[in-house]
């Protein structure tokens, strides 16, 4: 399973994701933002960070780079695409997942461990969890408050992937912090599964996100 890890100027979780993918048994490789062709890869992960300094809005500038064409092709070929944190913001900016991740309600950068509920297991990334399972992963963002005009539609179509299980730290609508496209193959999550991929980090609850890619 060859997995592309997309790098933009300002990405900073790329090596963590590489490490987690290796533990999961995948064969990851880095891809720079100006590469248009991703056809040799079986899956794509957009890692977290602060691409282009979060100028304009988090993810807005990364969303118009050449590699996005390759990511859109990957989606057309029915291969899994996962965006984590800044990667999630980028996927929302492109419109590959619905809604937007915007400024936290308390206007602060929040970095903490959170309990999360797995709302659907139909995506490759959540296929190894139980529905409604509570898992522990950290968040680290200033623009993570999820908003969408049509949240009921997402609920009806089983497009909500993760929700905060107790406290809703950033004010997200319905405590949503992970969504997918209609097919369930493009998934955007604000929490960091790669930072919860080994017990030494405090939890290995996130590793199944990457194992799920390998099993797909």
């Amino acid at each position: 399973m060859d997995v592309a890890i997309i790098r933009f100027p300002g990405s900073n979780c790329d090596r963590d994701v590489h490490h987690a993918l290796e533990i999961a048994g995948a064969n990851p490789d880095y891809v720079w933002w100006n590469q248009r062709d991703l056809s040799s890869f079986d899956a794509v992960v957009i890692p977290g960070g602060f691409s282009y300094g979060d100028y304009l809005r988090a993810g807005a500038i990364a969303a118009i780079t050449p590699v996005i064409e390759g990511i859109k092709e990957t989606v057309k070929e029915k291969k899994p695409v996962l965006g984590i944190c800044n990667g999630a913001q980028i996927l929302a900016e492109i419109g590959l997942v619905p809604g937007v991740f915007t400024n936290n309600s308390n206007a602060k950068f929040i970095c903490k461990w959170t309990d999360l509920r797995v709302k659907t297991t139909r995506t490759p990334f959540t296929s190894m969890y139980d529905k409604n399972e509570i898992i522990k992963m950290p968040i680290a963002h200033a623009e993570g408050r999820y908003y969408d005009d049509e949240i009921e539609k997402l609920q009806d179509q089983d497009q909500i992937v993760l929700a905060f299980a107790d406290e809703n730290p950033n004010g997200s609508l319905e405590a949503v912090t992970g969504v997918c496209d209609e097919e369930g193959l493009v998934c955007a999550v604000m929490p960091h599964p790669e930072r919860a991929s080994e017990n030494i980090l405090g939890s290995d609850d996130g590793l199944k996100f990457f194992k799920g890619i390998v099993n797909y």
Partner: protein
Amino acid sequence: MKYNAEVKISLKKGMLNPEAATIERALALLKYNVKNTDTIQIIKFSLEGENAEVVRREIDEMCQRLLCNPVIHNYEIGISLED
């Protein structure tokens, strides 16, 4: 023709604006009692174009493709001929 352009980007009505809420609370700390605080982002640039209508259409496209997120933003475009 050379035009000066100004794009005013604001949050749609009803959208939470944490920055504005923080400013309002900070003003309250200084004993200023204000309501309905809002923040608006302004992006300014100049550009060449055949006429005002063409320029406005081009800027509208910029707003749709990059400058704004249509899920949460409204925008206003102002243009004037450069002296």
